[in-house]
């Protein structure tokens, strides 16, 4: 199993990042080592074992009442953004 330059570029796109070719080659080398390492799991027989996504069992997580609460106000949340105007987040042009 190996990650080639094409795969690195595909992963970069999925990850919303971009690298020049030199960096992509370097990252590819590192990713290959990691993939080799995690591939050890292929030797473990797991037939009939249910995948476990959490250590929390359903019974210990009660549902809360479905009522409206206000935790944060708009102004303080907006204040964290790099650019805002008239109560809106300003983002780069989306439609050309």
């Amino acid at each position, binding site marked *: 199993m190996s*990650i080639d330059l094409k*795969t*690195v570029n*595909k*992963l*970069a796109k*999925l*990850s*919303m*990042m*971009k*690298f020049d070719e030199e960096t992509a080659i370097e*990252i590819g080398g*590192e*990713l290959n*080592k*990691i*993939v080799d*390492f*995690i*591939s*050890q*799991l*292929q030797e*473990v027989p*797991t037939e009939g*074992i*249910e*995948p*476990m*996504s*959490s*250590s*929390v069992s359903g019974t*210990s*997580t*009660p549902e*809360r009442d479905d009522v409206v609460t206000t*935790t*944060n*106000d708009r102004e*303080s*949340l907006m*204040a*964290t*953004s*790099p*650019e805002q105007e008239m109560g809106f*987040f300003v*983002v*780069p*042009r*989306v439609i*050309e």
Partner: protein
Amino acid sequence: MELYELGLKESAEKIKNKEITSVELTKSLLDRIEARNAEINAYVTIDREHALNMAEASDKRVKEGNPRLLEGVPLGIKDLFCTKGVRTTACSHILDGFIPPYESTVTENLWRAGGVLLGKTNMDEFAMGSSNETSYFGAVKNPWDLSCTPGGSSGGSAAAVADYQCAASTGSDTGGSIRQPASFTGTVGIKPTYGRCSRYGMIAFASSLDQAGAFARNVEDAALMLRSMSGYDEKDSTSADRPIENYDNKLAEFDIKGLKIGLPKEYFVEGLDLEVRALVDKAIKNFEDQGAEIVEISLPYTKYAVPAYYIIAPAEAAANLSRYDGMRFGLRVEGENLTDTYMKTRTEGFGDEVKRRIMIGNYTLSSGYYDAYYTKAQRVRALVTKDFAEAFEKVDIIMTPTTPTPAFKIGGKVDDPIQMYLNDIFTVATNLAGLPGLSVPAGTMTYEGSTLPVGVQMIGPAFSERKLLRSAYAHEKMTKFNVLPAKS
């Protein structure tokens, strides 16, 4: 003795008894940090005015005869916990200048108990690392030896406690990020059961594994800190709806006789430093001499815990970190269009290790590989968990080394991700199974020319924190370990 040398419980008692004021103690610690931070780099944000305001409010409460559990005691808070009005970045460039408009539940609980926010501690970027070298704010140095790492990811929190820059601090532990730095700095670090502390307002890394916990210079203080920060929170659907126990109460009332301690043979293997082993053996012998029953057990899937972890954690991280797009908070690097802005922001904003993990996460989650990697790792996670369940049918607690070696040198493993990952070999299985674990100092030894501490790890069944802390307390009393003296 300087005020900054006081422990957590000691500080709270002295403030309550009006022997000292919170303002005096807070000033003493702020001065200590100012004198030491250039060297240790344990703190990334200090808000002196904010700390002193909280201290004054505490002193007022004491005057009114209304002190709470931790009234007026200054605490170090890992930069992973959102603190309202005080910069929180998870030590990532991408969260540049982020001032949270809300408070994490863990810190909210601490302030409700009277704690004072002393400052935000350094950490590996987004808690991804085992040496605190991935922090955007630079590496933290180990107070025992400045050429060594304090471990990670909660390296700043551990170093701050060891170096008397706070009596106790918060940490988070996704694969060992509390226990490993505790081992490296001669401090006590506890990661409770998954769900014991709320994750609300704790910047997410791997949500099914992340759990908050505490550092202190002794077991009793760690227990008091944990008690003050934990509890059910309706804002975190995975938090456990169980009453908080008074972990620090009657720690000494514990009979070792008959305690069944399991030693997993897979943890005493090649790669474990012989001197580390000798210190752990000595700790075990102490328990045996007091009547504990030592049982050899097997956790056969141990070997696969690290690879399973390095599939599950990056996969969850890739999903969690997709929120950083430069639009609503943190860093924005303008590009030619919206997509270009996303890409530039993320490429510049994340460090190398974070990028690696996002890429690996997206690889194991991508179509064609999902079942072979991600689902496979989840099945192995179930097997690792089953190992523990079977072991706890036979024993009360499990004792192991916390780390294969004491602290390694800064720069020592930074070029080899796999070597760095293997440093978590004794800690990750606990996170996969959601179990509580702690590290308590076992002694000091010479390693690569330095005198360094090393810890022993205790693991228990879910919600057995009290038993673990009592065992650790008994160990502490039987072990000759001197915490690092306060150097000036």
